[in-house]
């Protein structure tokens, strides 16, 4: 009888324990920027010892000023014996082996999986080397690109006799990518993923990018002070530079620079907005070069390896994701979608587009935070409704702030076990 009572307690625990979840940062903006405090992080090896390889060059014309991005890199590490392989897709502007990809790859490898890190389709290297259209953010196209890249990587690594199955994980935009890739795989059946984990995905990409753009209204003095605030952020990043620092302009690494010295609460939102601006500016300028669309680079102008790009950079950081959507992305795809409108096209790039699939896909789970700053009010409810008990919602953590928390990391790794 007593045994039964205790067993019941354990069954009920996940529901009861919502209040006992001990991630200590309750301000979601602060959590997003500073992440998990060092002592509370999962224990991981110092070095990931990943191997880095480059795929062969695609056959489309590459922009000359992006000559250094002509081949897509990926990282991987194989176990000695047979094991399942986990593909991990980076978030917005993220590279295959830096930022939040790094702790996840370490944790997965430590837990006995072969690991492969994949660069986000929004990273400029992916846009140049692996995006068929050159205009990223289109979820179906991006999923097809990622899917093709995954197959190229599988063939490039070889040693498939040691791979006993395939899993996939992604965080932030990479989680949305993973959802669309899983849907594609359910039809193409190349990998037949055993398990897929989506960590903190946006529900609607458009709604999240609008929210990120709006965060810049928190700049002290408003958007008129963008230039000054941007300068201060760059100044802080350079001030934090040490010889041992990796220099990368992705959101993860911008937050890294502010981890020990976060700004005041009002400015945190603005900082998050700026961090994503650095990523969006890279994406937008690269897409503009791939397509000669004439967004910030005049369409009839060719950029050489030596062309000074400063002025384009200055403009690119002033342009937001929503500008990209309305004045580049939609006009670019419009001719291919005569039945869609500017507003209805938004839905194709949200999880609503694959909602039916996600409802039935027992091999997909989602981890999210109730206070994630990239979600609009009420959007969090999408996950329990669609995923049912395959959705785990943590009460706090902001956008990925609790990713490296030992409790979360154990849950993430445990999902694949």
């Amino acid at each position, binding site marked *: 009888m007593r045994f039964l009572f205790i067993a019941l307690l354990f069954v009920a625990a996940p529901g009861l324990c919502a209040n006992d979840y001990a991630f200590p940062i309750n301000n979601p903006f602060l959590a997003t920027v500073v992440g998990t405090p060092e002592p509370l992080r999962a224990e991981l090896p110092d070095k990931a010892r990943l191997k880095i390889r480059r795929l062969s060059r695609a056959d489309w014309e590459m922009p000359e000023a*992006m000559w*250094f*991005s002509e081949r897509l890199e990926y990282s991987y590490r194989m176990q000695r014996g047979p094991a399942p392989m986990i593909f991990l897709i980076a978030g917005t*502007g993220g*590279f295959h082996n830096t930022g939040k990809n790094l702790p996840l790859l370490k944790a997965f490898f430590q837990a006995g999986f072969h690991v492969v890190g994949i660069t986000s389709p929004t*990273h*400029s*290297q992916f846009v140049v080397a692996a995006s068929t259209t050159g205009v990223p953010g289109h979820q179906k196209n991006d999923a097809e690109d990622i899917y093709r890249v995954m197959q190229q990587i599988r063939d490039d690594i070889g040693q498939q006799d040691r791979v006993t199955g395939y899993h996939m994980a992604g965080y932030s935009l990479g989680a949305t990518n993973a959802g669309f890739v899983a849907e594609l795989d359910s039809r193409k059946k190349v990998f037949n993923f055993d398990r897929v984990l989506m960590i903190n995905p946006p529900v609607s990409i458009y709604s999240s990018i609008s929210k990120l753009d709006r965060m810049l209204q928190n700049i002290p003095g408003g958007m008129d002070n*963008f*230039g*000054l605030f*941007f*300068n201060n952020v*760059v100044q802080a*990043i*350079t*001030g934090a*530079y040490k*010889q*041992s*620092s*990796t*220099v*990368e*302009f992705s959101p993860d690494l911008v937050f890294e620079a502010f981890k020990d010295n976060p700004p005041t609460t009002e400015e945190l939102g603005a900082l998050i907005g700026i961090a994503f601006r*650095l*990523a969006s*500016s*890279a994406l937008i*300028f*690269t897409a*503009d*070069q791939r397509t000669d669309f*004439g*967004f*910030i680079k*005049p*369409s*009839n*102008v*060719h*950029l*050489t*390896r*030596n*062309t*000074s*790009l*400063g*002025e384009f*950079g*200055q*403009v*690119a*950081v*002033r*342009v937001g994701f929503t*500008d990209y959507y309305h*004045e*580049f992305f939609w006009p670019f795809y419009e001719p291919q979608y005569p039945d869609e409108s500017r507003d209805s096209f938004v839905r194709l790039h949200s999880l609503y587009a694959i909602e039916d699939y996600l409802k039935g896909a027992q091999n997909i789970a989602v981890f999210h935070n109730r206070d994630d700053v990239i979600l609009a009010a009420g959007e969090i409810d999408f996950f329990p409704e669609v995923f049912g008990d395959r959705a785990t919602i943590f009460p706090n953590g902001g956008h990925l702030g609790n990713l490296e928390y030992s409790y979360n990391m154990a849950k993430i790794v445990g999902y694949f076990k």
Partner: protein
Amino acid sequence: MMPRTVFSIALVIGLALGGCSTKPVIISGDAPEEPVFTSERLIESDVQSPFVINDPLEGFNRTMYRFNYHADRWVLMPAVRTYRFLIPQPLRTGVRNFFNNFFNIRTFFNQVLQGRPVRAMQTTGRFAVNTTLGIAGLFDVASHAGMPYHREDFGQTLGVWGFGPGAYLVLPFFGPSNIRDGAGLAVDSAFQSWLDPLNFDDHPSRQYVYYPLMILDTRDKVAFQYFRTGSPFEYELVRRLILTVREIEVAK
């Protein structure tokens, strides 16, 4: 001297190619087509953007930046990886300690020139401890004893004397710098050759150990990798980064 020859050749190549224009090339029509977003529409002219910095040597600098990428990727980094693979960590630490200690000589003279006697004394003390107890600098006894470590070069000294940084300058192999610090580097090197603390004059073969190890150690401790920032504006952003880092070092 071999490294100097390679350096000069790279410099000449850069100067030869550096005349290339940094302007975009119009491929059809007479004038650039107006893009959706232009700088006139968006930019406040009263704020200095980190993207736009006076860079009169940009053509040369961009060429050199690319040269460094190739040198780094095909020569330096493979050598560093071999070094890491072949030489065990404790020995590499010994090498790093040796050079850190050896550069105390340079730091000392620069601190004297900067008129900072207290720091110069600290540097002397550290050098004395590590050279003796630390066995020619292989062990960093001084840091364990809590003695402060400074690193000063002639570029910083010129900065302290009031010289501005001058134009941004990307040096072959050494990477991003500025005119003042480039000149400072030349003076530091010339001074070291003249002082000849390791007595290369009588033992020329020592150079074949000294230079390769110094280059390997210098590259080994810098995490930066060319074209890995994920930004098409890497050249511009690294320029801002390096100029600020040097400003901070001079002010320290």
